């Protein structure tokens, strides 16, 4: 009897791994494996014409934040990298805040619609999200270009005499990233809001709370896990953004993704590019750990 069941479970295990083989092979070849090679590359010496020399070196990791002066061998902070790092973090945080300010009321609006209509409203939010990121970025670019729609209107109305420079500024990145990643805020916030018990809201009003007090003391604490989840979901792709800053920043407002690109392109420093990629990956992983925790907490409050 026990023999039979061990045979069966052994066969089950074998079948399981057999079924998993194609997916795992593909993912090892084109996702996990290459990532491990990036780790190795980050400890090598850059080659003269791109690529690497197979010589161990800490230099690239060191160069992420500091650099040695070419002539005096003096240590100093790598200003260029730190500027880009700081811009990436700053713009990602600002995007999170802006997405929250727009996304929270929108999620609330959808959650307070009649139950059978909510799916449709959410579909309206998700349709743009599933369309091409590049195209949505183009759409924003065409609006804010010097000869774009907004400037044409402003000029036409005589509000300004010459086009307002919006493209290639940090402002354009902020607007663009909020536009493309907003649904990532709305989705989890809406998910927690949909389960909001409005009896609690009513109780708040019965106790003479104002609308803002109810919002701040009753609604917000109840949907906070959703807000945390949404903030991280927006923060992560912003930090690693490549297309949006390339199109809307035009090479002037580099973000981390573009800096990595530069190391593999014009600057030909693959090990530094690898070290920068892993830095980005590390920050993202930390953020995702917090995300999992936020989701977990929401699960608990369900019970």
């Amino acid at each position, binding site marked *: 009897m026990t023999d039979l069941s061990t045979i069966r479970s052994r066969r089950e*295990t074998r079948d*399981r*791994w*057999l079924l*998993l083989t*194609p*997916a*795992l092979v*593909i*993912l090892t*070849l*084109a*996702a*996990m494996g*290459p*990532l491990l090679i990036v780790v190795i590359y980050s400890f090598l010496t850059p080659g003269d014409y791109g*690529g690497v020399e197979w010589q161990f070196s800490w230099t690239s990791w060191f160069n992420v934040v500091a650099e040695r002066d070419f002539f005096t061998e003096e240590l100093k902070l790598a200003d260029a990298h730190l500027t880009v790092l700081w811009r990436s973090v700053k713009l990602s945080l600002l995007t999170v805040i802006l997405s929250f300010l*727009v996304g929270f*009321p*929108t999620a*609330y*609006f959808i959650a*307070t619609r009649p139950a059978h209509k909510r*799916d449709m409203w959410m*579909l*309206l939010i*998700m349709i*743009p999200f*599933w*369309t*091409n*990121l*590049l*195209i949505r970025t*183009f*759409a924003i670019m*065409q609006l804010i270009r010097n*000869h*774009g729609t907004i*400037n044409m209107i402003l000029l036409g109305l005589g509000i300004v005499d010459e086009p307002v420079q919006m493209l290639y500024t940090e402002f354009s990145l902020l607007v663009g990233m909020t*536009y493309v990643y*907003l649904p990532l805020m709305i989705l989890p916030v809406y998910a927690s809001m949909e389960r909001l018990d409005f009896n609690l*809201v*009513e109780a708040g*009003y019965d106790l003479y709370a104002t*609308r803002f007090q109810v919002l701040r003391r009753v609604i917000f604490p109840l949907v906070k896990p959703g807000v945390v989840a949404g903030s991280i979901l927006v923060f992560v792709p912003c*930090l*690693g953004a*490549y297309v949006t800053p*390339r*199109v809307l920043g035009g090479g002037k407002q580099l973000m981390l*993704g573009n800096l990595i*690109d530069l190391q593999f392109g014009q600057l030909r420093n693959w090990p530094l*590019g*690898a070290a920068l*990629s892993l830095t*980005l*990956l590390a920050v993202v*992983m930390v953020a*995702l750990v917090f995300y999992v925790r936020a989701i977990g907490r929401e699960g608990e409050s369900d019970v």
Partner: protein
Amino acid sequence: MSKGFDVRRQTGFNTIALTCFVLLYLPIILLVAYSFNAGDSIAIWEGFSWRWYVSAWENEQVQEATLRSVILACSSSLVATSAAVLAALATTRTKPWRGQTLVFAMVNQPLMVPEIVTAVALLIVFAAVKQATGYTGLLYLVLAHSAFCIPFAYMPVRARLQGMDLDLERAAADLYGSPVQVFRRITLPQLWPGILAGAMLAFVISLDDVVITEFVKSAGQDTLPTYMLGQIRRVITPEINAISTALLAISILMVITFFFLNRTRK
């Protein structure tokens, strides 16, 4: 409490929400509108015309990129969906097993790792392989796309499987159905909507990809999105809008179909 006091109302929220919906669609609508512009500008309207669609259609680079995009999206979604269905069958409706966390981490890895990181990782590996073998064909892109499409194909299939009960399959097995028969006659027919949804999602994800394609492609291997990205340095004509509109139409159609495929389940 006074009559007509709406506990759900929050001052200004409706305005913000409706503005949000308008702002979400306005840029896209303008982009689409200017694809029909008779003039050369993407900001000044000069009347309706199909000319940019005609010019995009006749542009050889666009033709080539479109063909490549479609071949790539079809083959990667086929590969990714097949692998994902097998993986979902192996990992759903079973007791916890050893290695479960590792497998889930691997399957979902493309969703967690920033695209630019995967892109440079693939650049490093494929550059070495290209140099060693001399092969510079489309297979690198197929492999790369298949990998990041797997989680998108996996999710709907897994969700569908979780919603299916094992009773029908048990009954079929009791009636001496062989495992292959049970799978073909019982499991697969119930699973179809999930598979279809997964394949469509994978197709759209592959069709839209810019970053990984940009780093993996060999010279002259543009897909539609990388072709468009290359055009931003030049003077932009509504031709780009016309291509964008066509791509948008495909994605939106697929997403809406996906939405209804997933909904009928409830």
